[in-house]
């Protein structure tokens, strides 16, 4: 947008960019860590004293016992894992119709393309994974598999028609230990292969240059993913639809999933390679900006346009929507071009205030139902008035004014496009909301992050501001929201919000819930960021003041980058809790990931009451999401040098 905003953005971008240099230097100066031979390592770390030995044995036994219990539970004949397998689509997208499923893949494709580009363009490249770690990892998993084979009790015997055989005490009759071990041939193979690979790396490759060989973390992950995707081609993952009553019968997971997932892998890898290629050119910086803006837009476009498949009434678009959008773009643009004239004087302010008055009256009128107007016209008008009021800050030479006007036109184009799409009815034939399952979890989490983060920063700045009006309003807001249980806010937004909205304005339940999430989370983020703001030393303010920086510049270039750097750990913590708290959507009747596992699957006739399996699966997926975020934040912290000087 204007140079000021660009500048604000650059503050943080530079912070990240400059951090690699430090990281590279750290890595270069770091000495090799001493490495002990395995036996000695065990002695030093686990059996160094009598107490240490006792503790190792006690907790080792407890761990083995817990592991055995878990495996016996998971592989028991009472488990019905088909409930999860058959309901994979229900878990992730709920009732999204199969006929439109291509839209899901396109959405995922967009996300993976952006992810690949971002990874390729990222300057936050760490050392990667050492061969030593891969080796230990392989050996550990191999060992765990083999231990599991031995620990799991022998399977129950079944009769010819699949019934479990019971003995006189109604306990299942089990195979002999020898047969059980022999029956687990595939597992033996996996365990031994993993162990052998690990040992081979350790002995052959590891010995050559053990601590010097690193595999890039991203290529390594892509390789693991490639293997996982390839299993879809040669391993029989089972049928779905054979027993379940939702999805088309007869097709296997393998049939329906192998092609799209393979394509997705190529999309991700291809985008990553393209990103790598671009990052070596001097256009990397501008491409990075485009990719980051696309990340911001992608959730809205994929959610409301691609997944929702709006049915557009072209007559209405031509007669109303398009002229209105063009009017705001061109008329508003011309007005702003006029208002940014350097020597305009008081006329500009008078015009701005006048516009603002009209914009406010539009809403008042709407509230009392005096004159009708499309909602988006009101919103655009208010935006125009606000920008017009601030326009004199952006006064300057012709090129600068034109940039300002183009930015306005772009914002209007995107806004009107999205509003038109949202207002058009959806063609997706789903009984409830058109999204559900994991999709809704992800979208609510993403919307919350996008909206709550800027709001949180503003609230934090407001609360630490020297202007009493901002301070009081922010404090009231934060303290009110923090003093109320989240679930009440969610109930309020999902049920009562529409009562408080002006006539003719309604908000979908899902959007209302998202709004509740964002407003709630912003209050907590604000407190985290405020902590960061307080950690910025007084000398930094004085130095900026002494240089003659304005308050906005001081905040954007000096204070916020340092404050946000300090607040990364709590901010990621807040993001992880938001991700998990989306499960509360189940309470207000939205069918999210958890609710599918907890009530939809157990309600199916074939899987009546089968709940534990789904819940365990849901736990795993939540854990993978939360753990990745936590890992990413650790990397970011290291990269930005949090806690140093």
């Amino acid at each position, binding site marked *: 947008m204007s140079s000021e905003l660009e*500048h604000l953005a650059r503050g943080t971008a*530079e*912070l990240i960019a*400059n951090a690699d*240099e*430090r990281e590279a*230097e750290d890595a270069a100066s770091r000495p090799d860590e001493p490495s002990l031979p395995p036996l000695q390592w065990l002695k030093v770390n686990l059996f160094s004293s009598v107490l240490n030995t006792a503790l190792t044995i006690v907790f080792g036994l407890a761990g083995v016992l817990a592991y055995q219990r878990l495996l016996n539970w998971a592989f028991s004949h009472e488990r019905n894992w088909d409930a999860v397998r058959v309901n994979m689509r229900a878990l992730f997208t709920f009732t999204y119709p199969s006929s439109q499923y291509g839209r899901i893949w396109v959405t995922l494709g967009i996300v993976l393309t952006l992810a690949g580009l971002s990874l390729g363009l990222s300057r936050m490249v760490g050392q990667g994974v050492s061969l030593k770690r891969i080796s230990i990892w392989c050996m550990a998993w191999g060992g765990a598999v083999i231990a599991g084979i031995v620990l799991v009790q022998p399977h129950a015997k079944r009769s010819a028609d699949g019934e479990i055989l019971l003995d006189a005490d109604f306990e299942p009759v089990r195979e002999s230990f020898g047969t059980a071990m022999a029956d687990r041939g595939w597992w033996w193979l996996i365990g031994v292969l993993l162990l052998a690979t690990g040992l081979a790396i350790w002995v052959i490759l590891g010995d050559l240059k053990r601590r010097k060989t690193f595999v890039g973390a991203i290529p390594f992950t892509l390789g693991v993913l490639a293997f996982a995707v390839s299993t879809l081609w040669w391993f029989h993952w089972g049928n779905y639809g054979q027993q379940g009553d939702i999805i088309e019968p007869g097709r296997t997971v393998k049939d329906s999933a192998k092609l799209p997932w393979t394509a997705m892998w190529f999309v991700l890898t291809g985008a990553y390679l393209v990103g790598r290629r671009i990052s070596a050119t001097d256009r990397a910086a501008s491409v990075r900006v485009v990719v980051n803006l696309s990340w911001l837009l992608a959730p809205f476009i994929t959610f409301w346009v691609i997944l929702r498949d709006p049915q557009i009434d072209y007559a209405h678009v031509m007669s109303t929507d398009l002229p209105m959008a063009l009017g705001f773009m061109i008329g508003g643009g011309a007005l702003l071009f006029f208002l940014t004239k350097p020597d305009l004087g008081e006329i500009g302010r008078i015009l701005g205030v006048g516009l603002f008055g009209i914009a406010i009256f539009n809403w008042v009128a709407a509230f009392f139902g005096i004159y009708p107007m499309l909602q988006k016209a009101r919103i655009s008008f208010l935006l125009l008035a606000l920008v017009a009021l601030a326009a004199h800050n952006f006064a300057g030479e012709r090129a600068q004014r034109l940039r300002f006007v183009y930015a306005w036109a772009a914002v209007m184009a995107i806004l009107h496009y999205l509003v038109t799409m949202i207002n058009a009815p959806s063609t997706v034939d789903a009984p409830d909301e058109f999204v559900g399952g994991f999709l809704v979890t992800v979208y609510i989490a993403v919307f919350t992050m996008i909206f709550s983060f800027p709001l949180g920063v503003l609230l934090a700045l407001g609360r630490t501001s020297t202007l009493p009006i901002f301070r009081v309003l922010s404090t009231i807001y934060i303290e009110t929201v923090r003093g109320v249980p989240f679930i009440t806010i969610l109930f309020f937004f999902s049920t009562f919000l529409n009562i408080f909205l002006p006539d003719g304005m309604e908000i979908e339940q899902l959007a209302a819930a998202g709004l509740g999430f964002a407003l709630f989370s912003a209050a907590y983020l604000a407190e985290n960021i405020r902590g960061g703001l307080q950690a910025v*030393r007084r*000398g*930094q303010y*004085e*130095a900026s*003041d*002494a*240089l*003659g*920086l*304005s308050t906005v*510049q001081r905040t954007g*270039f*000096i204070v916020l*980058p*340092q404050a946000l*750097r300090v607040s990364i750990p709590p901010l990621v913590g807040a993001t992880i809790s938001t991700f998990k708290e989306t499960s509360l959507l189940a309470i207000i009747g939205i069918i999210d990931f958890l609710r599918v596992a907890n009530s939809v699957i157990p309600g199916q006739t074939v899987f009546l009451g089968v709940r534990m399996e789904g819940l365990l699966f849901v736990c795993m997926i939540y854990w993978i999401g939360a753990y990745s975020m936590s890992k990413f934040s650790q990397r970011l912290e290291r990269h930005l040098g949090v806690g*140093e*000087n």
Partner: protein
Amino acid sequence: MSFSDATAAVSDELAARDDIIICDSVDKWYGDFQALKGVSATIKEREVVVVLGPSGSGKSTWIRCINRLEQHQSGRIIVDGVELTNDTRNIEKIRSEVGMVFQQFNLFPHLSVIDNISLAPLWVRKRPRAEAERLASDLLERVGIPEQAEKFPGQLSGGQQQRVAIARALAMEPRIMLFDEPTSALDPEMIKEVLDVMKELAVGGMTMMVVTHEMGFAREVADRVIFMESGEIVEAGTPEHFFTDPQEDRTKLFLSQIL
């Protein structure tokens, strides 16, 4: 000749120059504690003034009042013809004319050395980026550390950091430089490199106000030495006069403790 009024010029040549900073009975309170008690002094263009005094004597407070990092409650401060009032436009104008160097350097830790220096020319003076960066590297050359441009403040020694801080202040092309104990946080072996840069500035004709405990610097470079105690100017004069023939008992006591 009365030394309680430091406005008295120390030589005819200096007296002929224009006034650039005028302080007229400046008072400053922190709550009930009065940090400055009617401080009056006139600084001439291209003059180098060293302010001495025991800690807590108000010398830092005084020079911080001159670019409004602290607000005085009564009296007048006029810098380069502009009086310091609550009018923000005046303050911004003065701050871009007055450079300041702090005891704790106060470099921006998240910006590289070159960005630390070019930030203000870029955003306050609205220079194009290339020009601002060229200016920054010229200044780094001038303070003797051109090779450190891409490093971060945390990777530099204290002396180097302070030299960057001087370059950063100079990047605004100020007419006046204020130094608030610029060498007090430095290890002894680094003090000289910073003082050398300051001497060069003084020779170049910069108007400077320096709060310091470096008597050697005061003797060698200062046009005038001002001695403060308990928020008052006790005595002022040329370095020869001040160090060899102090008039006031409090000055004598201070000098006997420090020399």
